[in-house]
């Protein structure tokens, strides 16, 4: 038990993302209102984006741009690149795309919700299912 608490605290960011992700998952599964489900989906995606940004971060590191790599006055001096000093940009780049995609998905989902509302005059899922069964 005494080992467990430092373990949880040491990786607290991941626990936050998992909690967020499960909140989104819960909303998607358990909520009755379609807009609430869409909001849950967005929370889920945001949790994943935060997770990636977090694993891309590095303490004491900077953005991966080499200073004075070109046109240096002391051209003969060779630079050794310390990997630990630079952040790997790959997770952040991937998340840039994921943010764009999540906005597009949100737009499609909201357009569909409008379509459902126009057809059934309600956004509550159980009422919609009753209407479908009634027809």
């Amino acid at each position, binding site marked *: 038990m005494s080992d467990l608490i430092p373990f949880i605290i040491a990786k607290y960011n991941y626990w936050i993302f998992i909690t967020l992700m499960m909140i989104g*998952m819960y909303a*998607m599964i358990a909520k009755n209102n*379609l807009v609430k*489900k869409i909001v849950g*989906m967005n929370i*889920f*995606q945001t949790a*994943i984006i935060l997770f*990636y940004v977090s694993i891309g971060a590095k303490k004491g590191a900077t953005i991966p741009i080499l200073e004075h790599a070109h046109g240096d006055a002391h051209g003969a001096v060779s630079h050794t690149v310390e990997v630990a000093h630079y952040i790997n940009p*790959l*997770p952040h*780049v*991937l998340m840039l*795309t*994921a943010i764009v*995609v999540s906005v*597009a*998905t949100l737009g*499609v*989902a909201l357009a*569909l*919700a409008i*379509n*459902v509302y126009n*057809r059934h005059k309600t956004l509550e*899922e159980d009422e*919609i299912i009753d209407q*479908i069964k009634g*027809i």
Partner: protein
Amino acid sequence: MSQHYPALLVIVPLLSALLISAAGWLNKRLCFPIAVAALSVASFSSVGLLFRVLDEKVVLYKLGGWSPPWGIAYSVDYLNGLVLVVVSVVALLNLIATQRSVEQEFSEKIGAFYTLYILFVTGLLGIVVTGDAFNLYVLLEIASLTGYGLIAMGEDRAPLATLNYLYMGTIGASFGDRVSLYCNRFA
């Protein structure tokens, strides 16, 4: 020309999807011929690519001449070549065969339908042809979002069913991009 088949396969349907959505505003009768022309070019280049693959075993195409760690590479081997031919030719045949029923069912939304259809085929072809995990994720999203759009054009229960599919698909794609990151990391 023949060395650019992998790029033509994706670029031509992608750009013609834009053209079709413009044609939907101007003259609806132009939509179908543009779609057929785009998929014909795609089918022609996929067959040509299959013959090249039979000669060279693996075709590697670097977009813009940038090599893989920085640029996007398209790579096609035997299986990819065959699947490309199947996808593009079946999409073309399906497009021609369903012309009349599409005109009956979506008479006012015909531009939107053909735009989504061509974009969907673009996504599928891109998924098969690409050799880059990051690119794969983007094309997967193109294919799935246009898939939601196509399903939502149906009758009665279609919007609600599409919404359910969208929740599932989004969760799946979220894990898909995790896989693509690990592919990138260990490739």
